């Protein structure tokens, strides 16, 4: 009896697991489809961060920086941006692919 009950329980658990996985897949794909509408904002945000970096560290590329005390005050807020900037300068060769994701051409 207990064997049959265990089997039933196992089947129930299996069904639950399969349904859970299907739900996870549908939710995930839905989230991915939705995120296609926010990628334009993400791209703009990245550009704003680049501009912010340029404002603070612009003197490296010949753009006048703000007064030193302002730059120094803002520098701690740039930790993450500096990491990202280093990664981008090393690894990202062209931003075309990034924008192509927003480009619904098929």
């Amino acid at each position, binding site marked *: 009896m207990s064997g049959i009950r265990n089997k039933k329980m196992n089947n129930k658990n299996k069904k639950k697991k399969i349904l859970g996985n299907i739900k996870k897949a549908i939710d995930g*794909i839905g989230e991915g*489809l*939705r995120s296609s509408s926010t990628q334009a904002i993400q791209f*703009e945000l*990245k550009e704003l961060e680049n501009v912010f970096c340029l404002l603070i560290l612009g003197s490296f590329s010949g753009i006048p920086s703000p007064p030193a005390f302002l730059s120094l005050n803002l520098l701690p807020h740039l930790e993450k941006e500096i990491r990202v900037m280093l*990664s981008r300068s090393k690894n990202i060769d*062209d931003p075309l*692919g990034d924008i192509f994701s*927003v480009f*619904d051409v098929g």
Partner: protein
Amino acid sequence: MNSTFAILIAIALYFIFYFTYGKHLEKKVVKADDDNETPAQRLFDGVDYVPANKYVLFGHHFASIAGAAPIVGPAIALAWGWLPGLLWVWFGNIFIGAVHDYLSLMSSVRYDGRSVQWIAGKIIKERTGYAFSWFVLFALILVVAAFGAVLGKIFVAQPAVPTAYFLKIIAALILGVLMYRVKLDFRLATIIGIAMLATAIFLGKFFPISLSYEIWMVVFFLYIVIAASIPVNILLQPRDYLNAWLLVTGLIIGGISLFIGFDTIQIPTYTKWSVPIIAGKDTPFWPVVPLIIACGSLSGFHSMVASGTTAKQLESEKEGLFIGYGAMFTEGFLSTIVIVSIGVFGYSVMSPDIAETLKISSANFAEGYGNALKSAGGPVGMFSKSFAMASHEALNLPIDFMIILASMWVSSFAMTTLDTTNRIARYAFSEILEPVKDKAPEVYSVLSQRWIASAIPAGIGIALAWSGAWSVIWPAFGGANQMLASIALITCAVWVTKTLGNTRALNVLIPALFLWLTVTIALIWYMFVAIPAFMESNPLQAVILGIMMTGMILLNLLLIMDFFLIWKEKPEFRGQGSVVGNQK
């Protein structure tokens, strides 16, 4: 053949080949291994390199690669009958398109998420990467031309569609305010957004906007240039959010309607080898159909997406197959829906006179299908009406509403593409103008200026679209796109054979060379047959197209020369499944 079986065969084919051919590519060609860290893990920075759940990444990748093209191309290719188009969609998908997408993704993953363009420059020759940029610019201009022409036709033929589209823009603006200013609950805002979208479609019928084709061209040009100055969160983001709903609704309704319909495909299975579809000239099935069907079976733009964003978010190498290979199959399934719905209901949506003439014989169908498309409002008109009929027959949904919904679905994709053009143009220009930068900095600063960089491709594109000859412009766009695919696939073939050491990877090499050959011969045919015919009616546009096509053919010859030069060199075997990161 009936619609249910066609849909079932498509599902079965995709399912079987995913688990056989796809898995073979994964295990034997790429040798994907979860022990290899992906760029998302190795180079995690929380912004560009972030591991994403495989389903989320699939949805995101699919939304990025799905557009209007897989709908428009197959609708035109039905002139050869439903079987040749369907076979090319399936064959191209399984053996070329999905292989191209998957390998672009995986080669990028092995090269720290770099673009295919960079990889081409690295493993073939630097100038190959540069040629890639030129193709992107040509493709960009032709995208504006092709989508502008197709959109213009549908806006003229169905005046309810522009009304619904503009009402949708207003709905998007309201949705943006509700989401970002009022901070309304996301789910409630979504329900309100969808209700507004349905209202926009419903009201479109009562307040049509009837303008001439030329005025629409001017409107599109202004729209492309102005869209660059609108903050994205105000219009573009909520609009694209509504677009995602349109895509999902369209795919589900279309799939279910055709699956449960058991409707017989009415149009001829096969008409003849050469049909008068491009510029009224006899157009051979091969090599031209690959240019017409374009993104439905394979697309070079996908390599940009795969290596641009997807590669930087892949969590594990083994998930690459589901995302790269699987998403392309989903797009092929979308094209299957298009072919089957027009195949079943195409005659019902044409005017009775035209339908009767086409029904006489398959030769009559081949001769008259081009005109039937024109009378239905172009390929989009033909698809949207057939789609509406399918959903009406199977689910009893109101025809008028469904026609506008389907037209909006395609138009929305095309519009998104048009307004993104200016962003891409800016970067494509800066790549191409790099050598000019030092020699003539003034010229560089003028041409790379945001407004000018977007106005040039938009201006040339709209000038081409002005002719209204979408049947001539569309294959040119397809040619540029397939050329990109050809470069990407040849790059992947070199990567697989030279870098991964799979010297017998014929399943990559053969599609790459087949695609190169097909596209090159198709472009030569286009240059010598279609353009001279186009010259008679639109000399200016024909000259512009001729210059672009010549440039593309020359670049393509250069590419194959580089490919054979690198082929002679000794293989640089780096061990199977090697992570070739950080190579400069």
